[in-house]
């Protein structure tokens, strides 16, 4: 049914099985791919992943201190390369042949080959990882930022002190109003991931949008309001907040492409897949592995 994917080097005496090819997301879709590092235990498999990377990326991975950090760094590179390769842009794409560059502000992008007759797709992606989860979001056209965090992540500093220093007054007020410290911690993490996702979607670097220059409002739906135009809830960006596997928050920020009638926002169409590249892929959207907890999302 699908073209046989076999672009691996003859240096492998045992070739990796093919990656499951996937259709590019439509203009309205967002694809979320993720890997759970604890589920990837095979040393030979991790070695194969390492071999997909160019030398400078291997060096980067090895620059992390300790096996666990190196593993999640390796899985992050592996996930982004194999995910983009699945879309079979330009017929077949070896994950190793992908090149990346940074835009003027430092945001990573694919550097497509320039050749006659080939029009690079407006594929957008963003990755995020913690030691326990590595995720990659993909869209066509829409700028995207994603951020993942463990639900039970604790700050070393007091939440309100931290928020007063780095968040906006409205956000501090919102957190301050939560009496239960557990809930307050979770709300903080949600807010953090949403703010991160927004800055990453903008792609202009942390300092161009310091966290205290924009407010994330998450009462009914999620919206961003920048301090310099407070009257104008910035309609260009839409958000989704997901709870993944009951253990992680995933925040997604997308450039809004279209609205429904009368400027009404259309929900984000999300497809989520858990993967161990070359081993297994599992469609998880619509299951209780992926629960929408904020924003307007339809999963399919």
């Amino acid at each position, binding site marked *: 049914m699908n073209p046989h994917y076999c672009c691996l080097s003859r*240096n*492998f*005496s*045992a070739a990796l099985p093919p990656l499951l090819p996937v259709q590019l997301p439509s203009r309205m879709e967002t694809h979320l791919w993720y890997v759970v590092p604890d589920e990837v235990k095979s*040393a*030979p498999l*991790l*070695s*194969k992943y*390492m*071999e997909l990377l160019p030398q*400078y*990326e*291997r*060096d*980067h991975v*090895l*620059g*992390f*201190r*300790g*096996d666990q*950090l*190196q*593993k999640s*760094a*390796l899985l*992050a*590179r592996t996930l*982004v390369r194999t995910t983009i390769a699945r879309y079979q842009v330009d017929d077949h794409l070896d994950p190793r042949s992908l090149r*990346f560059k*940074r835009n*003027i*502000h*430092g*945001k*990573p992008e694919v550097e497509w080959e320039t050749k006659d007759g080939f029009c690079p797709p407006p594929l957008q992606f963003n*990755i*995020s*990882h*913690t*030691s326990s989860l590595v995720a990659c979001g993909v869209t066509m056209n829409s700028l995207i930022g994603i*951020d*993942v*965090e463990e639900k039970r*992540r604790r*700050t*070393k*500093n007091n939440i309100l002190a*931290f928020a007063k*220093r*780095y968040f906006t007054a409205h956000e501090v007020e919102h957190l301050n109003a939560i009496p239960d410290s557990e809930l307050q911690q979770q709300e903080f993490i949600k807010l*953090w991931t949403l703010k*991160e996702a927004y*800055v*990453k979607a903008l792609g202009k*670097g*942390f*300092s161009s949008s*310091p966290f205290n220059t924009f407010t994330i409002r998450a009462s009914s739906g999620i919206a961003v309001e920048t301090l310099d135009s407070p009257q104008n809830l910035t309609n260009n960006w839409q958000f989704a907040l997901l709870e993944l596997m009951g253990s992680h928050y995933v925040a997604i920020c997308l450039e809004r492409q279209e609205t429904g009638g009368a400027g009404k926002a259309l929900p984000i169409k999300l497809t989520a897949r858990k993967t161990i590249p070359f081993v297994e892929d599992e469609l998880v959207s619509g299951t209780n592995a992926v629960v929408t907890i904020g924003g307007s999302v339809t999963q399919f």
Partner: protein
Amino acid sequence: MASITRASVSMPSLSASVNQSQRRISGMNSVSFPVSGRSMIPSLRLQRGLQVCCAAKQETVDKVVAIVKKQLALPADAAVTGESKFAALGADSLDTVEIVMGLEEEFDITVEEESAQSITTVQEAADMIEKLVEK
């Protein structure tokens, strides 16, 4: 099974060297402080008297190391030096901001986002602190 000639490829025995490579590799993790511009940090360090080296005092470096170890829950005997990069030690963006906040409190300084963005190693943090403390 492909025979792996490079020992470094076999994951379980991988261990990063203590002295982190200074080579600037594109940061591909989720730390939000971008990579671009780091190599252009202006050397605004003051030259004092006959002091040729511009590095911050060891005492400052030690305090930064302590704050970093605490934030990242590293063991007391973890090898963290001036060259150590926060990201390589496992700091994500939240950790980095917390580290900066810890430095602000310890040294009674305020670090603007633009400056915070350019701190990626212990040494850079220490140098920035000394610059701000001098003011």
